[in-house]
């Protein structure tokens, strides 16, 4: 019984992990149709922000929850202003540019901090016991933060005028612009928020996975598969795909082994895309968030 609870919690964590690394990508892709190949590097930069800040004596929580999203969000806005905004409607050029950006970030970080960063931080909070089993309390917290983040994004999109304007702009830029909405500003803010969420995710995961300049490559494939499997709806898609893929992965990994776990995840994704080429929420295009 304890085992079931412990493993169940672990699978939940796997799901939250997947959702966390995918959400930023989902926002930028879902709302702007920009394929951000520098997504993994946004996560990486979030991680570096936390490590550097923590080493400089900043409180770890402040570094993770405030500094990481702030720094990466600002980087996102700068990137959008300098680069992405010249490329709207030119999806392929955006792709190329963000890939260039991804290499650039890796290059810059490697040049400054070296190929591996010699200082580190550990996951805070201690250990939670479930009968004979122990889990990291921090992992539990991450599940909570992911859920809270999802709810926050939902509320922003649904309730605030910013969210309304953003949704409107994404669906029909011309009309929104005729209504006096500054499309350019909405895009900038959306990109910034997407980047900030990626930064937050990277920062939160830094104590669990560590940081390397090239760590983004580990995340981006999974994030992509999750977002595409999820389909057009940002939240519903990311959540449903994370639950499905993370669940399959966690169960298979526990029953057999991590290799089969990963294979199960990928095969599920393939089958899913065969059945629903537009992802789980593809049919609900434009209606859900």
């Amino acid at each position, binding site marked *: 019984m304890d*085992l079931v609870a*412990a*493993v169940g919690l*672990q*699978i939940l*964590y*796997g799901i939250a*992990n997947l959702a966390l690394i995918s959400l930023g990508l989902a926002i930028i892709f879902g709302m702007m149709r920009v394929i951000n190949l520098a997504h993994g590097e946004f996560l990486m930069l979030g991680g570096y922000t936390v490590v550097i800040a923590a080493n400089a004596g900043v409180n770890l929580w402040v570094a993770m929850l405030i500094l990481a999203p702030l720094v990466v969000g600002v980087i996102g806005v700068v990137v959008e202003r300098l680069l992405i905004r010249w490329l709207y409607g030119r999806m392929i050029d955006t792709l190329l540019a963000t890939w260039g950006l991804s290499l650039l970030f*890796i*290059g810059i970080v*490697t040049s400054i901090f*070296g*190929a*591996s*960063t*010699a*200082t*580190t*931080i*550990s*996951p805070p909070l*201690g*250990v939670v016991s479930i009968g*004979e*089993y*122990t*889990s*990291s309390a*921090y*992992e539990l917290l991450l599940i909570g933060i992911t859920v809270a983040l999802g709810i926050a994004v939902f509320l922003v999109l649904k309730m605030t005028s910013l969210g309304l304007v953003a949704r409107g702009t994404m669906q029909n830029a011309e009309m929104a612009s005729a209504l006096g909405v500054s499309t350019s500003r909405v895009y900038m803010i959306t990109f910034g928020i997407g980047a900030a969420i990626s930064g937050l995710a990277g920062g939160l*995961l830094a*104590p*669990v*996975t*560590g940081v*390397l300049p*090239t*760590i983004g*490559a*580990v995340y981006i*494939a999974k994030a992509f598969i999750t977002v595409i499997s999820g389909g057009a709806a940002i939240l519903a898609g990311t959540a449903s795909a994370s639950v499905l893929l993370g669940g399959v992965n*966690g169960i298979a*990994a*526990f029953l057999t*082994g*991590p*290799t089969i*776990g*990963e294979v199960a995840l990928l095969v599920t994704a393939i089958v899913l895309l065969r059945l629903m080429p537009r992802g789980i929420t593809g049919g609900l295009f434009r209606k859900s968030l």
Partner: protein
Amino acid sequence: MTVTRRRFLAGASASAAALAAPAFIGRAQAADPIKFVSILDQSGGLDIYGKPMVDTTRMAIDELNAAGGLLGREIELKVYDPQSTIQFYTQYATQAAAGDRADVVHAGITSASREAIRPTFSRFQTLYFYNVLYEGGVCDLNCFCTGSTPAQTVEKLVPYTMNKWGKKVYIVAADYNYGQITAQWVQKYVADNGGEAVETEFFPLDVTNFGPTIKKIQAAKPDLVMSALVGGAHVSFYRQYAAAGMNRSVPIASTTFGVGNEHKLISAEEGDGMICAYSYFEEIDSPANQDFVARFKAHRGEGAPALNELAARAYEGAYLWAEAVKQAGTTERMPVIETLRTGLAVDGPSGRVTIEPKTNHALQNVYLAELKDQAFQILEVYEDQPPTDTLLVCDLVADPSQAVFKFENGLEAAGIKM
């Protein structure tokens, strides 16, 4: 620098060769520099391993040149960065062999990269050194593998840790050739020592979530976990293991932890107590090593990376070759190979490294060390350990014409029954 030179001129034969060297200076090529090519990843995912190796290679060549070069000729070091891409390995290997006409090439980190370029060097008859710890099994007259192989380290690590912690072992390993083969050696030595390998799990190199496995370890209740995990993503295992409080109940031993300076990437409390085995640690307490570390820090300047077996062996590999050239009195390939295979040895920072002629691998010291405060404390030293695994399948003395990688398809395919 003269100090260094003296250290590497160990043995009377070496001195004699050095004295004999001027005889060759008269040749027309005397003025041409000797070409030493290094092909190691300095960007992309493998740069964690490649960068320190290039640093120590550079240092070795600088030292050799400062001491007057080899055979009176300067050594010209050419470094290629294959950017963690296999196609560039082949590309630069061909360029080094056929274009630069390198006298020696030290190259490759992953087995995949080594196997991509080894045939090129065979074909163009270019002497090749591979200075990385790997799964063993290369049997190639032209290729010298100076790194440690699993049998060398695992054979010592397993009994020691089982003795210390208990007989139930849980094995976690990276899911590729190296991890699979290392895991098999671990299983063998666990059984040989009367223990039980309760479970063996393999992890794809990009796995970062080890939660399910940690739960399984908790359920299996082993006495120790033996890890052969590799790469940046796998560092997560040690963190998550510690975060679940497991490092206090079930200790970890590893044959791979630290070779990418992982012990600097996790905190002291996460890593303390882990026991590892390599043929080199930065913390080896010998004058030769302390001097080496100090020189490296001076050479590399600020931000010098921590030294590990790969970095030390890249350095020693360069000196092994240099010593052979001195003794052979030429840079020509066959004489140098023959000289190396006479059981040539150098005393480097890791101690004595001797070429074993049946396999072209190295007899080397194996150190057991415990991690404490992000540093290794040496517990045991086993001198002159032979590459037992490769010796099982390779005898270049009997058949020098071989140029194969015996373990490409695993141990069983090579005829090794566990």
